[in-house]
């Protein structure tokens, strides 16, 4: 086996190793712990970058998974330690490692309480999330899915805001409810087919032809992923969790954890249960569109900046759902699709939106954290006129916010464009309703945020010199994200190249 084959294993378990080392360090040496965590998080990021390069050269058009490792783990029930990536998985791994490093870097400046536990949990959580993106076995997938949950629960509960106790347990219970339903469905898949292997199951399509049982299993898994995503009406844990979590926690929640749900759709639900998915594809489309519009409306009504951005995630993840749903809906019997590529385009849009949303909303949460550290409030009503006081901050915020609303030339635009371009051909009415969301997004970004925070009158009396401009370490946190937003905005192919083959693979293997 070549050296590259072990790369994913190293990427996956390095954070675990680092977190265990942190556990052994004395808790008084806070600086050492912080530095160690940041440095050690760089290795997975660098290795992932190398793999991106290597994948781009050698595997870009591969039909299967690259860098696979497959070791028998629990022979009694045929469970394997099977990991591997395709283009989508690799992009998600990159997103995870990048946001982890940036989060740790940012946390170095703002976390002063129980430092050792914090950095331990953060690295441990990284392993959980990476594991989900890498797993090619359902039991392994479930294991990492749950393992990542616990550190996040603790991060919210220990370092969160005022309402953290409620938010943390709500987050855990919601997600757990979804995941246990998913677990039963996984077992059902095994009992039907005798394997937990995702690659095998994607070929076997268990429950093909048995639409009743197939649908029950589908909804078990669907519940798990849709709560995590989250789509309306399962989204109510999200505003609480995102608002109460510490800044870096919100970044990881919005940036990576929500993607786990969307990723599950593409890795498990669609390839393994296509028939049931096609049957219920309009439901997925509807939930996507409702999430887009509902989320955007709720955003407009928010007074808390962080809560607003949290709800914007509901809206933006709705695009992902719409893209996936539309792609599947194109295969309904009797569906009339003018352009044969529409499904792949919608799917590409959904996948690209996963990456973009991670980068953009991650950035937004950092920016909210930056102002909260100074003002100790996020009430939209008390700010105003910050554009003159903190021009650098204004600049960073404006770019990120405009990317979020889908301004052409920045990353967000392309994903929305692809999704609607694909969906318009397949589910026209829904796509038209969905476009409404884009307009509403412009409303809450420009009117609620930019106008009330950055324009208008600055309250000199209240703020004095408290609202200083961004510090160097905050610039370092934000710049990589801004650069990616611009690059992907100008040249989306750089990401879409990785995603396109995955979309084609998924669609071509459906029966």
């Amino acid at each position, binding site marked *: 086996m070549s050296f590259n084959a072990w790369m994913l294993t190293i990427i996956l378990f390095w954070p675990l190793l680092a977190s265990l080392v942190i556990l052994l360090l004395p808790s008084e040496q806070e600086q050492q712990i912080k530095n160690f965590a940041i440095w050690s998080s760089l290795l997975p990021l660098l290795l992932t970058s190398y793999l991106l390069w290597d994948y781009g050269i050698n595997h870009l058009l591969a039909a299967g998974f690259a860098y696979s490792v497959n070791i028998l783990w*629990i022979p*009694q*029930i045929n469970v394997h330690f099977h990991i591997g990536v395709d283009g989508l998985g690799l992009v998600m791994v990159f997103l995870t490692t990048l946001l982890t490093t940036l989060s740790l870097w940012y946390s170095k400046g703002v976390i002063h309480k129980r430092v050792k536990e914090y950095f331990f949990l953060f690295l441990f959580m990284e392993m959980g999330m990476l594991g989900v993106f890498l797993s090619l076995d359902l039991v392994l997938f479930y*294991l990492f899915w749950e393992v990542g949950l616990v550190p996040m*629960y603790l991060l919210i509960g220990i370092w969160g805001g005022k309402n*953290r106790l409620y938010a943390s347990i709500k987050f855990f219970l919601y997600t757990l409810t979804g995941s*246990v339903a998913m677990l*039963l469905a996984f*077992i059902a898949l095994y009992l039907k087919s005798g394997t937990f292997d995702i690659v095998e199951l994607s070929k076997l399509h268990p429950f093909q032809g048995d639409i009743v049982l197939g649908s029950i299993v589908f909804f078990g898994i669907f519940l798990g992923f849709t709560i995590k995503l989250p789509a309306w009406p399962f989204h109510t844990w999200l505003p609480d969790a995102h608002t109460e979590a510490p800044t870096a926690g919100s970044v990881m929640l919005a940036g990576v954890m929500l993607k786990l749900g969307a990723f599950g759709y593409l890795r498990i639900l669609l390839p393994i249960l296509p028939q049931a998915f096609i049957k219920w594809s309009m439901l997925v489309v509807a939930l996507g569109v409702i999430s887009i519009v509902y989320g955007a409306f709720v955003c407009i009504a928010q007074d808390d900046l962080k809560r607003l951005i949290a709800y914007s995630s509901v809206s933006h993840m709705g695009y992902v759902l719409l893209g996936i749903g539309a792609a599947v809906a194109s295969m309904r019997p009797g569906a009339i699709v003018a352009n044969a590529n529409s499904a792949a385009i919608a799917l590409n849009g959904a996948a690209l939106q996963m990456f973009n949303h991670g980068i953009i909303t991650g950035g937004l949460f950092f920016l909210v954290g930056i102002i909260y550290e100074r003002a100790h409030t996020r009430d939209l009503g008390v700010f105003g006129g910050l554009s003159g006081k903190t021009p650098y901050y204004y600049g960073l915020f404006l770019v990120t916010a405009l990317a979020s609303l889908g301004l052409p030339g920045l990353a967000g635009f392309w994903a929305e464009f692809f999704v609607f371009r694909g969906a318009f051909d397949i589910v026209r009415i829904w796509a038209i309703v969905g476009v409404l969301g884009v307009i509403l997004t412009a409303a809450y970004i420009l009117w609620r945020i930019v106008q009330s925070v950055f324009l208008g009158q600055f309250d000199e009396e209240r703020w004095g010199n408290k609202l200083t401009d961004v510090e160097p370490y905050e610039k370092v946190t934000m710049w990589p994200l801004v650069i990616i937003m611009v690059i992907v905005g100008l040249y989306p192919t750089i990401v879409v190249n990785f995603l396109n083959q995955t979309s084609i693979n998924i669609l071509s293997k459906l029966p």
Partner: protein
Amino acid sequence: MITLDKLYLLSPEFILLIAAFLVLGIDIFGKRRWQKALPYWTIAGLLLSMVASFWLMGHKETVTDTMAADSFAYYFQLIGEMVVVLVTLALVDYLPGRTHQQGEFYALLLFAAIAIMVAVSATDLIMVYLGMEFLSITSYVLVGFLRNDKRANEAAIKYFLYGAVASAVMLYGMSLLYGLTGTTNLAAIAQKLTAGNLVSGYQWLLFPALLFLTVGFGYKSSLVPFHQWAPDVYDGAPTPVSAFLATASKGVGFALLIRVFVTALPAVKIDWVALLYALSVLTMTVGNFVALRQTSVKRMLAYSSVAQAGYIVIGLVAFNGKVPFTAFNGVSGVLFYLLAYAFTNAGAFIVVGAIEEHTGSTQMDDYNGLVKRSPFLAGVFLILLLSLAGVPATGGFMGKFMVFGAALAEQFYILALIAIINSVVAVGYYFKVIKAMFFVPGEGPAIAVAKPTRYALVITLAMTLLLGIFPSWFLHIATTSGLAMVGL
């Protein structure tokens, strides 16, 4: 026919018997220096006996037709011995200052271990009864051993009264079974029942017999509605003894439930499956919902262990009897679950005991900010609670996975659904403790944990994680042990 050449198959029991008398002897006649080492003599005996039990695994014989020497028995013996080792380690720091009769305590513990070993090997109703009574009587004494502790006394008398009634009912059930079949041997009973060779006109007594037997076994494994003693006894008993009762002693209930029902009563499988189905639903639901309301961690763990019993029964309900076993067969699930649960729950009680040792309290509020006062205890308890809640990478998850999988495999969809909903409800109370330990600030001096207790906790922690991450070897042992019992 008595054949003495097979007695070596009982060597684990004999080793412990010698160890028990040795401990008693040292306590009375030994030098002071030796007396101090009593717990270590106890542990040495247990370890030796464990080696013997492990060595003898794979045998498939009976001794004098009343004791089975099969992997199934040895498997449960190993669980029992292991738990007693952990309990003994926890007692080293717990007993001094509470009682002067330490030697007797350790000796009693060893006798209780022997009782477990006899009970789980029994293949004859008389032997089953003797083993159960032997275990019960030693347990009553252990619970009430600290005679100046009013709550322990109350617990002991409650345990005794419930136990007396339950074993009387069970004995009545056995007598009915004997009356119907004319034998007390489990295999012979099975033969008679399958052949339909019963005293005519009284076949209907079979179901009452089954019901009464279930009362006895259900009492030991704290199935609702035979559980009422459990919360009070677990709460009132010395905490290490609670650990023993909630794991090893409960395991005996399950071992007998499995052995008697599967080997003696396959003819009425449909009856006991229905009965256990109902008991399982009741047990997990009542256990979980009552646990939600508790303010004492120890009492909460007591109800949680009632609820866990409900999950374990699912495995037996879903046992399909096919040989060789299918991947998700209920019995190896139950055996694995009990192993994982023994380590996890024993560890949890030991943590509670260690905290009680220093704060004198088991109230949830006194766990506030525990992570500051003892990061070790808080960290270990976190993992153990996650295991009890069934979060992956722990033994508790693998146990649930195997058992729920068995339920689905046998198409008990509703039961699996109820179990899954219950395990979400359970998170509500397990995480209350995590919340107190990690989220809520609290003041108090640092808690120092005695070395032996520390060792016990490290073992439980390591085993909980090992069973969750590398379960295959243990699953293999559980499966072969289950097979040995079915094949007998």
